[in-house]
C-alpha cells in the first residue's frame, strides 16, 4: 500500500530545517508542559516556555572565557542543528524524500557520529574544568552505545537486504520490524536518547558538574546547542519510523501524515522519559553495554539473518 519512494528536487530542501525546527519546538513545548505540571502550574504556560527561552537567549550576551578556543567552540555549538538537518535528508515523508541514497542507513549513522565530535568540541572550547569533564563523559558514553547502535541499525537492513531507506520501508509491508526485532528497536531508541544527551543519558550536561557542556555557554551559542539537542532527538525519533515502525503504513490517512503522527508519538515518548529516570553513570554503563547489550544486539542480528535466509 506504500508507494515507491521518489526523490524530489533539491529546492524543497529549504523546508527540511523548518519542519525539523517546528517539530523540535513541539517537543520542547511538551517538555515545558510536563515541567509545569510537576510544579503545579497550568500546562499552557509550560508549553509556552520554549518561546520564552528563545527570547531570553536572543537577548542574552555571549559569554567569552579566557583562552577559549573560540573557533572550535562555535563550530561545536553551531554544528548540532546542521547535523540534525543532514540526518533527516534521507528520511522519507510518505513517498517523497530529499536524498534517495543507496546507503541511507549508514548516512544516518555517520551523522550521529559527527555528534561525538561536536559535543567534545563544545566541552573543549570553553577552557573550563566542568565543561571538559562533560565532554569526556559524553565520549565515554558514546563508546559504550555506538557498537550496539551500529548493529541495531544493520538489523533492519539485513531484513530488507538493502541499505536504502526506501527498501527498508517497502520490506515492512507485511509485518513491521518492531514486532520481530524488539531488541534492535529498544537499542535504537536508547541510542537516540544517548546521542542527544537526554534524560537518563544526560550525564554530559548533568547538574553534578554544574551543567557540564552548558556551563559556560550563553546567548546565541546556548540557543544553538539546546535547539540542536532537540533537533537531534527529533531526527532520531523520525528515523525510527521508516526503520522499525513501517514508514507511512497505516489505514485511512495518507502516508506522509502517518509519518508525522508516528514521529510525534515516538518523540513524545522520548520527551516523557526525560525526568522520570535517574541518570545513568557512564563508568557503570560501560560494563553493561559491552557484556549485556552488545551480545543481545548480536543475537538479534543472528536471529533476523537466520529468518531471512530461511524465507
Amino acid at each position, binding site marked *: 500500500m506504500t508507494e515507491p519512494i521518489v526523490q524530489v528536487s533539491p529546492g524543497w530542501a529549504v523546508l527540511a530545517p523548518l519542519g525539523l525546527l517546528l517539530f523540535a519546538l513541539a517537543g520542547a513545548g511538551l517538555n515545558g508542559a510536563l515541567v*509545569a505540571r*510537576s*510544579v*503545579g*502550574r497550568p500546562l499552557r*504556560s*509550560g508549553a*509556552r*516556555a520554549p*518561546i*520564552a*527561552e*528563545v*527570547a*531570553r537567549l*536572543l*537577548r*542574552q*550576551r*555571549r*559569554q567569552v*572565557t*579566557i*583562552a*577559549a578556543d573560540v573557533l572550535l567552540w562555535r563550530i561545536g555549538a553551531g554544528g548540532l542543528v546542521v547535523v540534525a538537518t543532514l540526518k533527516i535528508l534521507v528520511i522519507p515523508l510518505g513517498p517523497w524524500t530529499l536524498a534517495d541514497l543507496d546507503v541511507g542507513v549508514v548516512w544516518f549513522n555517520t551523522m550521529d557520529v559527527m555528534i561525538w565530535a561536536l559535543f567534545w568540541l563544545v566541552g573543549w572550547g*570553553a*577552557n*573550563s*574544568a*566542568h565543561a571538559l*569533564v562533560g565532554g*569526556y563523559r559524553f565520549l565515554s558514553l558514546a563508546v559504550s552505545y555506538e557498537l550496539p547502535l551500529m548493529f541495531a541499525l544493520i538489523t533492519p537492513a539485513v531484513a530488507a537486504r538493502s541499505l536504502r531507506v526506501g527498501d527498508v520501508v517497502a520490506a515492512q509491508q507485511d509485518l513491521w520490524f518492531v514486532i520481530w526485532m524488539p531488541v534492535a528497536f529498544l537499542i535504537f531508541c536508547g541510542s537516540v536518547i544517548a546521542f542527544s544527551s537526554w534524560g*537518563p543519558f*544526560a*550525564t554530559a550536561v*548533568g*547538574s*553534578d*558538574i*554544574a*551543567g557540564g557542556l*552548558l*556551563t*559556560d*555557554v*550563553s*546567548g546565541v551559542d*546556548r540557543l544553538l546547542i539546546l535547539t540542536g539537542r532537540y533537533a537531534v532527538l527529533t531526527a532520531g525519533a523520525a528515523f525510527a519510523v521508516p526503520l522499525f515502525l513501517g514508514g507511512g503504513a497505516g489505514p485511512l490517512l495518507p502516508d506522509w501524515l502517518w509519518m508525522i503522527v508516528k514521529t510525534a508519538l515516538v518523540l513524545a515518548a522520548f520527551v516523557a522519559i*526525560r*525526568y*522520570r*529516570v*535517574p*541518570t*545513568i*553513570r557512564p*563508568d*557503570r554503563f560501560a560494563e553493561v553495554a559491552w557484556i549485556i547489550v552488545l551480545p543481545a544486539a548480536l543475537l538479534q542480528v543472528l536471529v533476523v539473518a537466520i529468518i531471512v535466509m530461511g524465507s
Partner: protein
Amino acid sequence: MGVTSLLARWASTCVHVLIVEVPGWDESRMLLEAELDRRGWRIALSPADADLLAVCGMPGVELRTASDLLWNQLPGPRTRVSVTTPVTLSALLDAAVAHLGDDSRQRNDAWVRSHPVADKDPTADAGEHESMVHDGMSTEDADHGGMEHGDMDHGGMDMPMPGGIPLAGGGDDRDGLEMDVLHVPLGPVLPHWPPGLVVDCVLQGDVIVSAEARVLEASSPEEVPTTAVTDAADKRRRIVRLCDDAAKLLALAGWQTAAQTARRLRDDELLGVDITDHVAALDRLRRRVERSMLLRWSLKGIYLGEIGVGARADTGTAPPENLASVDIRHHLIGWLREAAFLAGTSSGVQPPETSGADPAREAQDALAALPELLRGADLGTARLLIAGLGLDTAALAQTHEGTHD
C-alpha cells in the same frame, strides 16, 4: 522597537535565577525556590545561564567577594537581589523583572562592562585570584594554576602562559598515567551544594587526588533568623531539612521527578500547609526510591564509612562492623523514613536514632572526614558523597569553627 520589547516581554516570563545561599539562611532559600516554582522560573546551574543573582542572607566577607565575582560572570541582561526577609519576596522579584526589561539600563550596563575604567581588569590577573574565593566554574581563576609549567616544548618558548594563566604541571595519577594536576575549588555556589562550603580539590582528569574543605561564614551568625525553640517547630525544621537533603541527593542522581516530589513536600511543610497526608506522601516517596533498580545500581558501592552513619542511617541497630557497608542509598531511605516518622508523631517525641546527636559536632566530624572521603573519587561520585553527608554548614558557621584541613 516593537520586536525588542516583545522579546523582553516574552523573556520576562521565564527568568533564570542563580541562588547564592549564605549558611544559616536556608529557609530564605527554600522560600525563594518555592516562589520561583510558583512563577515558573528556573534555577540556573551556572552563572552563564542566569539573568538574576539572588543572594539569600547576609554574607560574610569571603562570600560577598564570591557573589561579586559571580555577578561579574553573569552575561547581560542581568540584575541582582538580596533576599533577607520573606515578606517582600514577591515585590523584589517583580522589581527585578522590571529592571531586566529596562533596555536602556541594561545597554548602559553592558557598555560599562565592555569599557572598564579601573586599571585592575578582573579578567586578566591570574595571580590575584589565587587568594580569592571563587566557585569552581570560573575560568578567570587559576584553572591551570600549576606549580611549574610543563616542560614539553622543544621550540625554546619560555614560560608559555595562554591567557595569562600558567600551564599545569604533570603528575602520576591513580591509574598510572601522567596527567595534568589541576587545582579546582568546588563551591561555594554550585547546584545542590551545601551552602558556603568550599572544597579545594586537586584534580587529575576528573579524579580528585586530594581535597581540603572549609566553610565560608555568614556576616554575623547571631543574625540568623531563629525560629521559636519549640518541639513542634524543631520537628518541622528537621523534616524540612531531611526533605531538602533528600531532594538534593535525588537531583544530583538525576532523578528529577522524585527530587521535585521531595521539594514539594518540603515546601508544604515549610509553609505550614496541612500535613495530614504528609506521612502517606513521604512513605510513597520512600517506597518509590526503594523500588528503583536504576537508582540502586547507580548508587551502589558509594560508601560513607563511619561518617554520619550513627544518627540517620536506615540500619540504626546495626553493629559497628557493618557501618562500612551502608551506602548512600540507605542514607537517603533513612532520611525519608525519619521524615515520615517525624511527620507522623503528634508530640515532640524524638526518634531513637537522633537522640544525643549534636548537630554542630556531627557537622564538624563530617567536615573533618571529607578530605579522606573524597580521595580517589571522581567528580560525580564526590558530589554524591558530599550530598549524602547532609552537611549542615549553618551549624558549623555558628560555632565559628569553619576551617579544617
